């Protein structure tokens, strides 16, 4: 395991700490024009070199694909006994139901990963090393967001299409759906967009709260419990509050056809979610700059 890097083990020797610097231009004054790409490289190394990243993404893939297949199969099996509302929903929006089956729990792994990307720096003290290397906190948070968002987007898009191509054939005997149907492609791409935004949303909350357990509890409690519960709010005001909550608005983009009670269109909903996330990220950045590390 260690063999790969030990090639140049003793060039400096223990006596001359200044020796190793020789050919390396470790002097200042070099152009730092490539500053942001460097930060991206740094954040990418950080991201890929801890186990929580791999485990969270693996959990997401297994949960999302497995549950999409399982719940679709169960739905098909009990199709004749299912209540009419449920059938109507699958008939209206088969893609959204397939994705929802897998992502309802799968999205928690993305939330956990989003939170951990920043809170693990605080819990381990790594944040101090990071800020010593990159004292400007806004670019650091930006680089972290970009790396996390790109990776999450790639993984969730693959899983989104994967879930569709696994579950659609299972569903075939009851509901026919293909990639070319209206809204399907948008929903599949939208699912990845939704989960990526959700990850950033969780990351912003992680940056604000700075404690892993607290931030994870907060995000998951909101996404799974509070936001859906808002449906029960009475009257038109309650309906609007629910419609504009971040995740409730955001997940509309992962539906191929709007539901009967949806107030916002798919992209309007995503815009609302993006706005919430942007606000939280700005707040996180503001706090990061002001708080002691």
């Amino acid at each position, binding site marked *: *395991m*260690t063999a*790969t*890097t*030990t*090639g*140049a*083990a*003793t*060039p*400096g020797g*223990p*006596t*001359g*700490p*200044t020796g*190793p*610097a020789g050919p*390396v231009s*470790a*002097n*200042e004054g*070099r152009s*730092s024009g*490539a*500053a942001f790409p*460097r*930060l991206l*490289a*740094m*954040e990418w*190394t*950080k991201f890929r*070199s*801890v*186990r*929580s990243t791999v485990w969270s993404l693996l959990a997401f893939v297994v949960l999302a694909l497995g549950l999409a297949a399982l719940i679709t199969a169960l739905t098909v099996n009990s199709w004749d006994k299912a209540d009419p509302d449920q059938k109507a929903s699958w008939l209206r929006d088969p893609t959204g139901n397939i994705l929802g089956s897998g992502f309802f729990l799968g999205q928690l792994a993305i939330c956990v990963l989003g939170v951990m990307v920043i809170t*693990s*720096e605080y819990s*381990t*003290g*790594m*944040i*101090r*090393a990071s*800020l*010593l*290397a*990159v*004292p*400007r906190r806004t670019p650091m948070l930006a680089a972290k967001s970009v790396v996390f968002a790109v990776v999450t987007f790639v993984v969730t898009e693959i899983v989104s299409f994967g879930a569709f191509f696994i579950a659609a054939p299972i569903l075939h005997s009851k509901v026919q759906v293909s990639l070319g149907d209206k809204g399907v492609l948008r929903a599949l791409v939208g699912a990845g967009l939704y989960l990526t935004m959700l990850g950033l949303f969780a990351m912003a909350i992680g940056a604000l709260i700075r404690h892993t357990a607290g931030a994870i509890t907060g995000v998951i409690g909101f996404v799974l419990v509070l936001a859906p519960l808002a449906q029960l709010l009475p009257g038109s005001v309650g309906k609007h509050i629910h419609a504009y909550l971040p995740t409730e608005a955001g997940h509309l983009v992962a539906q191929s056809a709007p539901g009967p009670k949806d107030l916002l269109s798919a992209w309007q909903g995503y815009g609302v979610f993006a706005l919430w996330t942007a606000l939280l990220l700005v707040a996180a950045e503001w706090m990061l700059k*002001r708080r*002691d*590390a």
Partner: protein
Amino acid sequence: MLSEGAAVIEVHDLSKRYGDKVAVDHLTFAVEPGHITGFLGPNGAGKSTTMRLILGLDRPQSGTATIDGVPYADLREPLRKVGALLEARAVHTGRSAYNHLWCLAQSQGLPRKRVDEALALVGLTEVARKRAGGFSLGMGQRLGIAAALLGDPQVLILDEPVNGLDPEGVLWIRNLMKSLAAAGKTIFVSSHLMSEMAQTADHLVVIGRGQLIADESVDAFIARSSERSVLVRTPQPAQLAKELERAAVPAQSDGSGEGEGAVTVATADDGALIVRGMEAAEIGEKAAAARVVLHELTPQRASLEEAFMELTRGSVEYHVGTDQHADGVPVQAQGTPPAAATDQTSESEVAE
């Protein structure tokens, strides 16, 4: 390159509060290149906070801290200029030592070669691919030092670097710091252990309760507080104390240590007197004039440790219960002498 004598780290009127607690209180000092500057103070004196303020991790309420005239946060490639080892660990426990250093190197545009060199320098090459969470305290400290040296910086800020190191590691750190200082680097190293500083530092910045107590060479520091302390044994202690008091120029002893002319007389547990502010010869003459019998008259030489205790008395954040009467004992008061003096007393007893 920097011209000789130009201050590298400059702290000006720096203050930091956490809630009601003042951690750093209008601190001003400068650290110069080419030697090791010890940053000394009791636990809780504000050393780590000061270093964190210099490094831009915390925001001061007032004042400035600069490195070559620039605040840390404005340095473009800070690790190439300043290497820092913080007291608290700053490593993700799940990441390997190699990847830890590599991500830091990437942020500064340093090549992979520097990572290998830094690992070799601190002797962690063998465990480079192991998770840092499994490292012992000493190995963790070495990894922190590798990170500090990664960019071959001109300035090193080390917070309690010998903590957790075995004797071999301590020696290694000392030699490392000395060779770096000899190479013209600026070394600012904190410790609460005077003895450690005595071995390494050339210059001292001493703080207590966030305030500057001393900023001078190690030699001057020792000389300042070891002068004019004399152990006196006499069967007539009360009479002698009175004589010495009368002889002394009246001075306001406000507990901040003895100024010129202030004489303090303290009584050790075994009845011996500890006289400060008067030479042994003078005490002998006064005693003779007053016809007081002397059994012993011994000038005391304080070690660096004692000098430190002496100067930081009254600024120690957490007093041990028995220590509370130790503050500057005014003339002829019957207080307990400071711990250091008691030690000396028992030593001289053994010597007798």
